[in-house]
């Protein structure tokens, strides 16, 4: 459906966010803003050791602390192997976790939990739990994990789904298409890059937090800061052994997720403490706990080898990945798969492709989902290798991309071969405006005039770099979203969605999608999201799925309701429904000109004739995952004396189909780019030789501040995705894939040093420059 055929146009307008005014006024309640009388405070005893067996846990002194109400540990909690990753079914991450184990696998691993009347009592009790450990040698890098004779991190017999526990391999993927090795050997021109990304943080403003309490009927309510309320319900039920029908999960306002809350961490602990004590329990991670005990990006080393003809047509593409999943395999297989599945199709012309990867256990914090989900790591190596290839070919890097990227109507074998931990789904690209993105981006940054000029300003040398990326929109064969749309007696609407707004603005976008179909202003659609008692199912806010998957469900429900409205109006006006049109809150007959307002229709259906509830529930299961595309261009200045890199300008031109809410889409791009600049220039968790995180907090772990934000120019280049709601595709992740390679390539343009290990700190850049004459 073309957008132009609709009048009134909620879609494509940067309307006021439905929750904007209340947020500005500080009204909405975040998870912990609700004060449930009689709440206990829950707290967790972390492991001080990276790798150890628990010989004994003695809680007798802790139990004597006044105000202590429950203590959980491996001795009194049933052992249920599960995964903390909040994903669809069947769960692709290994069941290698239990709530409390007899072994600890990283500094910060969960040893015991306490519920007490006050924070002080909880802290005091934790201090008095005596744990005897038998220390085991820690493994602090994937290379050590793979070494022959390495200690085995997951030696428990009841784990399921680990690829090769005895060699510390959580997951492995090997996808050969054609014969890449032979094609590389025969290729006239080749290029190779190995790039490394360290442990890094999502840095959400709000930490992970939860309140577990009982409703009037004695059911357990889990109010939690999550991206995946329905997965929380399913996993908590299984892990604590409670009938899911007795659990309600509520997602209130969320202070950011970026993937870190696609994870079920505190919820089962709080639930169990509540069940044991019969009291409400509040829990929240401290920032230090967020750093070490929640989730991080998967640190990776990715090697890309490219083979091309002399005119720059890619002929062979090889990608080799070593991923560090940390102590547990949350998202190990799926993030690993996405390193290839979200990158390699971009250059679909090569007949020979080999994707090979392993995700390895170490005794370090647990990695998980993080915006970009592996693609970010993959693009760093791929796009640096492309830059090298362009140089070898003597070709403009933009032109090299142009000769190879996937066009409308084309496919890639990768779509079918690599899915979310299993086979994927064949699909063709139906919309792609990358050509325009490249053209506009290059023009904005001044690519022709400024690149290769090495303009100097004292010790500062300027350079330009670029990169391309794509992502997906939801997970094919896995994601399903549903929406219920109800027309009220006054002709306004209620939209109930399982989709989870975590600050992204999805409540607004979904209201726009419905309003467009219903021919009403956005404020006539009241949105209620993510409450497992009241809203229909949704897999959750991840994998760039909400606008596309949940949006399609909303659009279907809205068309159904629209048809019902026209039926009621047809009966009332004595006309055929096909002669009626709905716009600006009025149904009008093209034939007779007679009309009825929506409120008249709502009133009639509710109270007057042929009474019924005008409503519909519709679902959308993701049959394909249309990729958004982006071209990234940046200008950096490098100080040769100190190695300091300054990003002077960053231009990102992206194709997300039709932007439902352009300002929100631009905001997603800007935020993702800044987060990517953090990866490129400053963010890195550091560890002691015994595996303790040395900078677990914002005092020593630096994310870019407002003064570091360069001018980021986000440009939306429209296309129209025929399978998307009103032509839309996703936008939330693609923007984070560009900064690492674009900045690395720009540094190379400026000073001739290839930065392949992130972050590009002054020290690393200075070292790469060698001695200056």
């Amino acid at each position: 459906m073309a957008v132009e055929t609709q009048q009134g146009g909620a879609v494509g307008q940067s309307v006021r966010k439905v929750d904007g005014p209340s947020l500005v006024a500080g009204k909405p309640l975040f998870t912990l803003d609700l004060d449930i009388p009689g709440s206990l405070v829950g707290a967790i005893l972390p492991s001080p050791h990276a790798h150890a067996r628990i010989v004994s846990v003695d809680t007798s002194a802790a139990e004597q602390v006044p105000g202590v109400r429950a203590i959980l540990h491996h001795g009194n909690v049933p052992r249920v192997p599960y995964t903390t990753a909040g994903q669809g079914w069947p769960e692709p991450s290994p069941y290698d976790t239990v709530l409390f184990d007899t072994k600890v696998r990283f500094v910060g691993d969960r040893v015991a939990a306490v519920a007490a009347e006050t924070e002080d009592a909880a802290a005091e009790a934790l201090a008095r739990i005596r744990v005897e450990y038998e220390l085991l040698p820690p493994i602090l890098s994937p290379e050590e994990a793979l070494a022959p004779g390495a200690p085995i991190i997951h030696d428990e017999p009841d784990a399921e789904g680990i690829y090769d526990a005895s060699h510390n391999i959580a997951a492995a993927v090997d996808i050969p298409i054609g014969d890449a090795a032979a094609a590389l050997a025969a290729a006239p021109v080749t290029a190779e890059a190995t790039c490394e990304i360290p442990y890094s943080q999502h840095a959400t403003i709000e930490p992970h937090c939860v309140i577990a309490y009982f409703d009037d009927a004695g059911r357990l309510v889990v109010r939690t800061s999550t991206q995946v309320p329905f997965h929380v319900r399913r996993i908590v039920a299984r892990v604590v052994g409670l009938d899911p029908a007795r659990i309600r999960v509520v997602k209130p306002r969320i202070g950011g997720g970026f993937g870190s809350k696609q994870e079920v961490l505190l919820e089962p602990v709080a639930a169990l403490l509540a069940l044991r004590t019969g009291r409400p329990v509040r829990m929240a991670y401290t920032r230090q706990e967020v750093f070490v005990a929640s989730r991080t990006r998967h640190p990776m080393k990715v090697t890309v080898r490219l083979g091309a003809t002399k005119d720059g047509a890619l002929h062979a593409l090889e990608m080799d990945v070593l991923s560090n999943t940390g102590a547990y395999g949350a998202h190990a297989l799926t993030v690993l798969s996405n390193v290839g599945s979200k990158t390699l199709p971009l250059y679909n012309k090569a007949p020979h492709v080999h994707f090979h990867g392993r995700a390895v256990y170490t005794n370090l914090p647990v990695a998980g989902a993080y915006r970009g989900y592996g693609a970010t790591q993959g693009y760093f190596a791929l796009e640096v290798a492309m830059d090298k290839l362009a140089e070898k070919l003597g070709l403009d890097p933009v032109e090299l991309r142009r000769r190879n990227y996937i066009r409308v109507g084309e496919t890639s074998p990768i779509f079918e071969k690599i899915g979310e931990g299993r086979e994927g789904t064949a699909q063709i690209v139906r919309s792609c405006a990358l050509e325009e993105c490249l053209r506009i981006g290059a023009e904005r940054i001044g690519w022709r005039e400024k690149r290769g000029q090495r303009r100097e300003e004292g010790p500062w040398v300027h350079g330009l770099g670029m990169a391309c990326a794509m992502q997906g929109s939801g997970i094919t064969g896995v994601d399903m979203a549903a929406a219920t749309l109800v027309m009220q007696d006054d002709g306004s609407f209620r939209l109930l969605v399982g989709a989870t707004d975590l600050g992204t603005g999805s409540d607004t976008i979904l209201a726009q999608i419905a309003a467009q179909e219903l021919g009403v202003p956005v404020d006539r659609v009241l949105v209620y999201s993510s409450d497992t008692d009241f809203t229909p199912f949704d897999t959750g806010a991840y994998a760039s799925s909400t606008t596309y998957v949940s949006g399609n469900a909303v659009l279907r429900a809205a068309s159904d309701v629209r048809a019902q409205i026209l039926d009621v109006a047809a009966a009332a006006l004595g006309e055929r429904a096909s002669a009626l049109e709905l716009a600006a809150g009025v149904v009008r007959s093209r034939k007779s000109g007679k009309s009825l307002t929506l409120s008249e229709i709502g009133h009639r259906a509710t109270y007057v004739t042929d009474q019924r509830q005008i409503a519909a529930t519709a679902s959308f299961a993701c049959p394909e995952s249309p990729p958004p595309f982006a071209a990234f261009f940046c200008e950096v200045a490098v100080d040769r004396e100190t190695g300091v890199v300054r990003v002077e300008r960053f231009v990102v031109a992206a194709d997300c189909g039709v932007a439902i809410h352009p300002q929100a889409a631009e905001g997603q791009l800007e935020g993702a780019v800044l987060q990517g600049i953090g990866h490129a220039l400053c963010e890195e968790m550091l560890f002691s030789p015994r595996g303790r995180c040395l900078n677990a907090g914002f005092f020593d772990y630096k994310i870019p501040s407002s003064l570091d934000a360069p001018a980021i120019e986000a440009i939306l280049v429209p296309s129209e995705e025929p399978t998307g709601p009103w032509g839309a595709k996703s936008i939330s992740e693609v923007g984070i894939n560009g900064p690492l390679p674009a900045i690395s390539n720009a540094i190379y343009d400026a000073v001739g040093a290839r930065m392949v290990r992130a972050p590009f700190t002054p020290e690393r850049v200075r070292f790469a420059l060698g001695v200056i004459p």
Partner: protein
Amino acid sequence: MDLPEIVRPRDLADAVRLTGEGGKPLVGGTDLFVRLRKGAERPPFLVYVGELPELRGIHETEGGVEIGAAATHVEILSAPATAQLPILRLALATIGSPALRHMGTLGGNVVNASPAGDGLVPLYLLGAQVNVVGPARERSLPVEEFVLGPGRTALQPGELIRSLTIPLPRDGAHPYFRKVGRRQALLIAVASLGALVWVEDGAVREARLALGSVAPTVLRPREVERALVGRPLTVEALAELRDALSSAVRPISDLRASADYRRRVSGNLLLDLSSLASG
């Protein structure tokens, strides 16, 4: 965190008495509270000296400026008297963030005695005097003698800093200050260089350098300062002294950077002084 009780003294004498009883002076708290929270210090009580008139105010004196120990960075940055001390303003403007500059004080920065103290760098360059009051007497000592090591000063039990006296430098000094690190705000320097350079007929007449974060205290590399005299401010001429400066520093490796990098960058920062030739 259990915060110790905060006591508000009646006057300066009372403050000195309370400090003598073991109370810890408090002004902005931007260093002290971090330390209390970490458990690095457990004083029996805190003495809030931020409102004592003797510790406040910024005024011109004969040949200099006197800054009360409890003057905040923002007050110092906006005081007319400090217009004659551009190097002080350059350095203080890089401290933390607006919020920190509103709370933090120069007195606190001096007593904190961090090798990375951005306020200390200009005080070393300008040869500031630290004016101390104690139970028995007042005394005054150069900042270089006041700071003994990381977090260590010459303050005796019961003593407070009352003010800092900063002599005005001779006319014509070019000020330079630069802090190196991963980002722009709320940054503890990996290395910093401050300088005052007088140029005459295209050659250096006098140079004062002070480096932060590359030794146990802020450092004045006097040999390099002397060697600069007579040279033009060109990259080539400065490069000849780069190694000398690198060997004058005594850095450590920590989370933020290695000793090696700090050594090299100290030398390289010297080349940046060439920017003063044009400005």
